[in-house]
């Protein structure tokens, strides 16, 4: 399957704990310190729209968004450029980077104890209607690569469920870990 553009999102446990604008200085700081992977370009602010991509750290390869468009507030990592390797590896790598950003946000001084991500129930979005349409066939075609990637994140077991059947929407998969997961840091440790 030729899928290069996709998103991984981890939801915040308490979406109202911090004001969306407070992510702006953090993302600018990340650019100053080159704190996350990618060629970091700029910060975009859509905080004036309540159900939107919120605040984005735009990089050449991917965007890190504090997003409220795809469900409640959470960290959405949106891969944009083609990279080599097998799809399952590309997906696993995206989970690794997304989890790394979640851990980093949880540890930012201004968010300590207030920003926490739900580790056991991320979503995966195929951002490519041409190659992966939002159909049952599209879901099944994706399933093996997605499962192979997720086996590295949730080795004990997990469930996959297609969220919406609207053919206009992007194929979005709810991932649910069967066993309880402690936190995003422990998941990251599995992938590092």
């Amino acid at each position, binding site marked *: 399957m030729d899928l290069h553009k996709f998103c991984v999102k981890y939801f915040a446990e308490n979406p109202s704990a911090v004001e969306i604008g407070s992510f702006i200085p953090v993302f*600018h700081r990340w650019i100053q310190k080159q704190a996350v992977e990618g060629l970091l370009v*700029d910060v*975009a602010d859509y905080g*004036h729209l309540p*159900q*939107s991509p919120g605040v984005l750290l*735009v990089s050449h390869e991917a965007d890190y968004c504090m997003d409220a*468009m795809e469900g409640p507030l959470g960290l959405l990592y949106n891969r944009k*450029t083609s990279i080599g390797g097998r799809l399952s590896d590309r997906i696993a790598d995206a989970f690794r980077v997304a989890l790394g950003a979640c851990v980093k946000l949880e540890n930012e001084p201004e968010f300590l104890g207030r920003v926490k991500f739900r580790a056991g129930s991320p979503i995966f979005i195929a951002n490519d209607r041409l190659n992966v349409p939002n159909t049952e066939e599209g879901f099944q075609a994706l399933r093996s690569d997605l499962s192979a990637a997720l086996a590295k994140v949730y080795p004990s077991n997990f469930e996959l469920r297609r969220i919406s059947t609207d053919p*206009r929407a992007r194929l979005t998969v709810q991932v649910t870990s069967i066993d309880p997961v402690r936190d995003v840091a422990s998941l990251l440790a599995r992938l590092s």
Partner: protein
Amino acid sequence: MTSTWKEKLGDRVPPDLAREIEIFENEIALRKAGKIDEKVFAETRLRRGAYGQRYDNGQRSDGLKTQTLAYPSGELTKGPTTMWDAPGMQRIKIPYGGLTPVQLEALADCAEEYSDGILHVTTRQDIQLHYVHIEETPSLFRRLAATGITTREACGNTVRNVTGCPLAGVCRTETFDVTPYAKACAKFLLGHKDTQNFGRKFKIAFSGCAEQACGLAMMHDIGAVAKVKNGKRGFEFYVGGGLGSVPNQAKLFDEFLPEEELLPMAQAMSRVFARLGEKKNRNTARLKFLVNKLGLEEFRRLVIEERKSLADDPAWTAYLRNLHVTDEKALKPAAALNGRPKPEGFDEWRRTNVYAQSQAGYAVATVTLPLGDFTARQARALADIARKYVGEPMRLTVEQNLLFRWVSEADLPALFGDLREIGLGEPGAGTIVDITACPGTDTCKLGISSSRGLAGELRTRLASRMVSMDEAVRGLKIKVSGCFNSCGQHHIADLGFYGVSRKKGSWTVPHFQVLVGGQWDHNAGAYGLAVIAIPSKRIPDVVDRMTEAFLRERQKGENFQAWIKRIGKAKVRAMLEDLAAIPGHDENPSFFSDWRDPREYSTGDMGIGECAGEVVSPLDFGLAAAEREAFEAQLTLEAGDFRRAADQAVSSMMTAAKELVLSKTAAAGGAPEIVREFREKFFDTKLFWDPFAGGKFAQYFFHAVENPPQNPTSDAVHRLVEEAQLFIEAAHSCRLKL
């Protein structure tokens, strides 16, 4: 298996658009192979609406230092100093703002897959997507083309999106529906051989009536206002209008142009503009400069002569046989609202966002889009709402909103409920909270201050007071531009702002010039002038102070514009003067960064002196004096003494030039010496040049000194004052480089 959109869409893309996109795709490949010059490629992509975006030169100040953005394509560029991989802005033409649900869905898909999930409505009824990679544009174009949208000639030296009154066809005061004419004009001129050799862009607007703002005809290269004479349809035809750095009111070319002459006259005008318009100096290349240079009479003579020479074209009048092609059919029968349950907040929303159509029982509902933005998900939901209540018709507005037309009044409560469900049920359309803003420093290469940051801040503050706000204040219009170029249309607001910067010691501070006196009604009937530059962080205080004073001092029936005129700009300036003071950096560091951008507002690698925040150089004093003189010129203009106002405007430029010269030499000498020294030390060396406008502002000075107006008219002095202010702004920018 299908692997490209080209294969998948096949013949759903109209052949002419398909060919056009294929050509562009090939040009991308050729540029990557180094077989097309970067300048040529830049104009090529601009003509497809693919713009550059901020930081696309590969440099960005992170607030501490300037970082180099090392894109993977290395030195490959898509234009001079524009890196290949740098994200760009895609402008998408939506003629007269008319959209269908299918088109909206295609736009939403493209926003998600190629952009950041946001659709932005511009002040000329376009849609813009940001952070788009150049190599994804052909697929994006194909997907839009399959729904009848083209990005062709959305930018570049072409006929830009043809705009039109969003109420056309349902308006209670229109003379007739201008929609089919706007559509025919857009179609006829798109890719026309006579519109391919302009020195600059060309903007056309249609308006159904003269009194309302409608299409803002007076600020366009061609403004066509519907008119009926002896039972025959035609247009009051205006030419040479424009905003930009120095705005120009359009002039009446023909008090009645018969409908069958609309397209041939536009063609003839295009030919004259292409032949005689400036090509080398883009700063004087808009049609307004040609009209001013030739004089309206001579310009008219040339165009009419050109018209006579044109060979007949059936396309000129073919569309007139089927003017009803753009008529819209209501989905539901007209029904009154009477007695139906109303959700909470409905009455307030209805008061500001609903317009009763000329067709009884139907209404236009405005969807207020904060800062002109909506998400891809909201776009899809809006398409569903359109199908549910009105069928097809939607329009984008120059106030960056979206309209549903032909809503049966009985459906208004349910429609409101559906909009609220998707976060778009905010009231306040067309009021003080419905602030227009260009992209500014968020994404525009030319932005000086954060127009969207300021607009967002004002919107939040004002919305919280909306309920208790006096009606006279609620109805005011605020428009914000990030720089002098007026994409936010600051000249035609009650309160207009455009971004500038000022020095405080070795720090640079974001500011906005405050403009008053502009007029939205009467198709952008008057342009405001700047009265004072205020630090960005104090602009909310400006709004509060001005609106409070207006409420306190206005006379019965007096609107904001009339109040400003009565009290005079000197009093307005005096009212705001104390707000211009900049606190020390230690005292209030927030003044040294912009709204919703915590980075230190500076050129990145500027050092901080021992006395930072306290040093005022003689040059700073001198430039302040020049500003005062320019303002006095404005007051004199207001008093009707055009001769003296012109002299003062020229003198203010001379003062600014002298102060710059004095920063390089011990003595400046008299006027001829100042001009000579300024030319030598600042113009010839390009030290005074703006990175994008080049030497334009210096040329204002040279022109004013070398050709002082002999019998200055109000219009000419208005322009001169505007040029003086821009020259002084450029002197401030130059001072940053010294």
